[in-house]
């Protein structure tokens, strides 16, 4: 059974903290993604990666960075957490060729609250 695992289901962090959200997939997928989910806005793409050590900005990269040192792991970093980054964060992966005709696989999500 394919799996995308996010390290935490729930996190509470303080304003100004550096926050790491970890994601691991066991499907040997090339592509990995971080989305942010907010009510009424759907999912918005933060960053994505096609390969190890490669990253590209999505639609809302401000305040975030990512790291992909190994193929199976894609980390999202909040450099200095702010309350407007309180949200649900979803990691996803897909095989080479992307989502043109194959589905993406999602982790269970991390609900982050910044206080």
């Amino acid at each position, binding site marked *: 059974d394919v799996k*995308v695992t996010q390290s935490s289901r729930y996190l509470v962090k303080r304003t100004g903290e550096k926050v790491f959200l970890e994601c691991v997939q066991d499907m040997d997928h090339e592509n990995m*993604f971080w989305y942010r989910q907010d009510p009424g806005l*759907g999912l918005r*793409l933060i960053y994505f990666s096609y390969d190890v050590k490669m990253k590209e900005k999505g639609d809302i990269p401000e305040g975030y960075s990512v790291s992909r040192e190994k193929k199976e792991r894609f980390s999202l970093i909040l450099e200095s957490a702010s309350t407007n980054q309180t949200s649900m964060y979803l990691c996803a992966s897909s095989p080479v*060729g992307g989502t043109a005709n194959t*589905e993406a696989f999602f982790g269970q*999500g991390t*609900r982050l609250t910044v206080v």
Partner: protein
Amino acid sequence: AQSVAQPEDQVNVAEGNPLTVKCTYSVSGNPYLFWYVQYPNRGLQFLLKYITGDNLVKGSYGFEAEFNKSQTSFHLKKPSALVSDSALYFCAVPDTGRRALTFGSGTRLQVQP
């Protein structure tokens, strides 16, 4: 740019009745279209996809979707709703330039017993 729109924030239906969750798309070329479902406090699960061929696509959990090119729609349907179908449903289209999916705003389906 590729995009999808879900015009309804919420759909309410009685158990046993047919359900429809609406999605319209705007794409260049031949569309590839997806439906995902999100149960409470869970990640997204793939339901079905349209690539080419039959306009009626069958997916998981008894769901199906009807592709209509003239109306640029891809509505999700089920003949008989279950209370357990209550969830958040997302329509999506590939952003092929970035190999990512672009999602609609989501529709919450509430099935009343």
